[in-house]
């Protein structure tokens, strides 16, 4: 395994050229992820990236590491399994808002409350990209799409609130085109002891003409510049997360006392290492039935 110093972020690049539409937010999201992984001392051989299904889910293909591109909505259980078996491996899950908050919403709640030490990056474009422009769970209630000609007429899911209510220990939001901040936030998620969740505004330039780069650039408020915001304060977190009028980037919440799953449950062994035969004292298992 290479040491921290000689890993460059390009080591995480695969030879495959992304097929994303030119200008898709996912380019920026991915670059930030690769840089953050390299910057936090990881290399492709000790990193496992699990991706969902969607334009966003293709991210695993364009990166180089151990990786699995699974079925729609199930990236988090797979990532959880990887980390359980191999606490020594850096695990990152990534996908879209449909993948994470619709078909995978149940897993999201439970992954958050399990607090497994990994990071989860959701490319939130407020639309279904890969299936060509249907409403997603984060689409605005009046957003007209092919399946919702009058808008979904339901309030969007607030993923940050969902995370907070589920007992998240790290909640952040970033913007794909604010490269440095985005990378910095992902890095913090990786370094967090527990489940590091980042909702990334990653605009879809083809199907979403409302939640655009310009829109986010104009409306984003960076919590880093808000001296009153204390990320360790639950009430502060609640306030920004439930603020319906503003869009924020930065770390909303971080539980200082977060104890990751592995520590709580004593899951520390490398489970890939097993003997050639039954364990030495295995006859004890039989004797239990006397």
């Amino acid at each position, binding site marked *: *395994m290479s040491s921290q110093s000689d890993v460059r972020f390009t080591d995480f690049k*695969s*030879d*495959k050229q992304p097929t994303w539409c030119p200008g898709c937010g996912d380019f920026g999201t991915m670059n930030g992820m690769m840089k953050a992984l390299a910057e936090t001392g990881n290399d*492709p*051989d*000790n*990193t*496992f*990236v*699990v991706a969902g299904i969607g334009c966003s889910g293709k991210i*695993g*293909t364009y*990166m*180089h*590491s*151990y*990786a*699995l*591109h*699974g*079925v729609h*909505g*199930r990236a*988090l*259980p*797979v*990532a*959880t*399994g*990887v*980390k*359980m*078996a*191999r606490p*020594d*491996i850096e695990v990152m899950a990534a996908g879209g808002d449909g993948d994470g908050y619709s078909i995978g919403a*149940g*897993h999201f*709640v*439970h992954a958050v409350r399990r607090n497994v030490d990994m990071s989860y990056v959701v490319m939130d474009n407020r639309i279904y990209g890969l299936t060509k422009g249907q409403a997603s769970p984060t689409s605005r209630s009046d957003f007209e799409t092919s399946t919702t000609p009058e808008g979904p007429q339901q309030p969007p899911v607030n993923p940050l609130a969902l995370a907070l209510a589920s007992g998240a220990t790290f909640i952040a939001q970033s913007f794909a085109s604010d490269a440095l901040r985005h990378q910095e936030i992902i890095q913090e998620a990786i370094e967090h002891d527990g489940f590091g969740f980042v909702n990334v505004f990653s605009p879809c330039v083809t199907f979403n003409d409302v939640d655009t780069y310009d829109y986010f650039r104009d409306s984003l408020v960076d919590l880093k510049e808000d001296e009153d915001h204390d990320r360790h304060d639950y009430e502060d977190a609640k306030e920004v997360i439930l603020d319906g009028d503003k869009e924020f980037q930065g770390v909303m919440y971080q539980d200082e006392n977060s104890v990751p799953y592995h520590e709580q*449950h*004593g*899951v520390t*062994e490398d*489970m*890939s290492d*097993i*003997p*050639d*035969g*039954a*364990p030495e004292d*295995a*006859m004890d*298992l*039989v*004797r239990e*039935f*006397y």
Partner: protein
Amino acid sequence: MAEDLNWAVGGEAGDGIDSTGKIFAQALSRAGRHVFTSKDFASRIRGGYTAYKIRTSVDNIQSVVDRLDILVALTQRTIDENLDELHEGSAIIYDGERSWEADIPEEMSGVDVPLKSLAEDAGGAIMRNIVALGAACEITGFDVEYLDEALEKRFGGKGSKIVENNKEAARLGQEYVEENYDLDLDSDLETTDNDYVLLNGNEAIGMGAIAAGCRFYAGYPITPATSIMEYLTGRIEEYGGHVVQAEDELSAINMALGGARAGARAMTATSGAGIDLMTETFGLVATSETPLVITDVQRSGPSTGMPTKQEQGDLNMTLYGGHGEIPRFVVTPTSIDECFWKTIEAFNLAEKYQTPVFLVSDLAMSVTEQTFEPDTFDMDAVEIDRGKLVDEDEVEEWLDSQGRFRAHANTEDGVSPRAIPGMTDGAHMSTGLEHNELGRRTEEQDVRVQQVDKRNRKVETAKEQEEWDYREFGDEDADNLIISWGSNEGALVEALDYLEDDGVDVRVISVPYIFPRPDLSDEIAAAEETIVVECNATGQFADVIEHDVLERVKRINKYTGVRFKADELAEEITEKLSQEVPA
């Protein structure tokens, strides 16, 4: 035929029926007797009829029969439910002081024991079942000391006072019968010096998993699979493993897959509705070439069906389930000891061929306990084969010209090298999308065909390299052939005795692999008549067999929710043999 005694305790769910039965079964096993248990239970926690039945003999037994010699009845319903099996000379232990008036058929002996008040004398009404066990010992001439041993095992953890009270309760029950009844059941329960272990099919699967090096288990509770998870929890940790109770079956199978990709031997187990939910991921397991053991403990379906009842109705699901075409193995243990060995084999097959292995059991086997010589589970004989797991020295051989690991290399045998995370130069991606050797998505026609063929080829390789044999009983040269899978084997083996008495010669073939499976065409061609026996209504395995040999077979199907019994099966076979084969 075995000289056997059939005993049961029945009452309402919540009456402690299960533990009462288990204690007696353990006492009999401690006395060196063979034991085979079965359970009648309803899908509710309190209320509702439930019974625990024990068949015991000094000879080996592996099925139930339609006969009950001693019944401990805590409710009238227990007597009513078992009327068919009770016979002249059966003894029914009941408590005449309780509010119900036992309606004991005339030709049977009612043994009225004040269970509750004697239990109170011993220290608490809760021990009335133990009083009944003492009474049962007296009726059968069984030494209560064995019962004492079982009570020590059961209550030892709760302190010596509890153990002593229970022993006293048993003693009071025994003495009461001794003083008040003079029964001659001529069931003298012989003891031997044999040491047996007593366990059920799910325990055997759990034990097999640990022996095979399974370290990660993810599951979601569902009857009758849950007890596998319960067994592993608290034990697997001793070996550095971990169990996660997932939020649902979708998660469970995906978590297990994640664990397996990370290099652990991993398993999930479920039943009925759970296997439905997992279906989408079968294809991902196969196409990402991840070694995974998926256990299905079948119960009555469809839908929520009868959760606590026997059926073998998921064969088609495990054999054909999933969209597209999925290379897989379907392994079907035919007895409790085979649950252990086939679990180990399932893990080896999964890693050697990097594809899902379905380990298919059924409710009857999962809840039934049976005695075995401890050596039956000889841990020294356990072999672990991790297949083509490459190490750092071997990885270079599998890199392409740009140094990328060919995780899905198109090999001759269809099996690719496998690198697990952390290994230098092994980094690669796998996807559920069709992909090339590097795991990268492609829709190129020739690569698609190459990868489909490659994955299917591993099944062909396995067909050649592994032994897909069957188990055989009865007369090898008999004209009549009976084929079965799963837990029906025990009843069939015993039915042979009955059939022999009636002068009917049969050969029994019990199949522990449904895919790939042994080729039975010669055996079927040599037989005059073939009957396929299974616990489902449509004959899913019979369909498979007919498809293989292009010939109609006869079928015996039971889908009442209750397993086959030896005597019943013997009768049905005789009857079937005289019928025409359906056109």
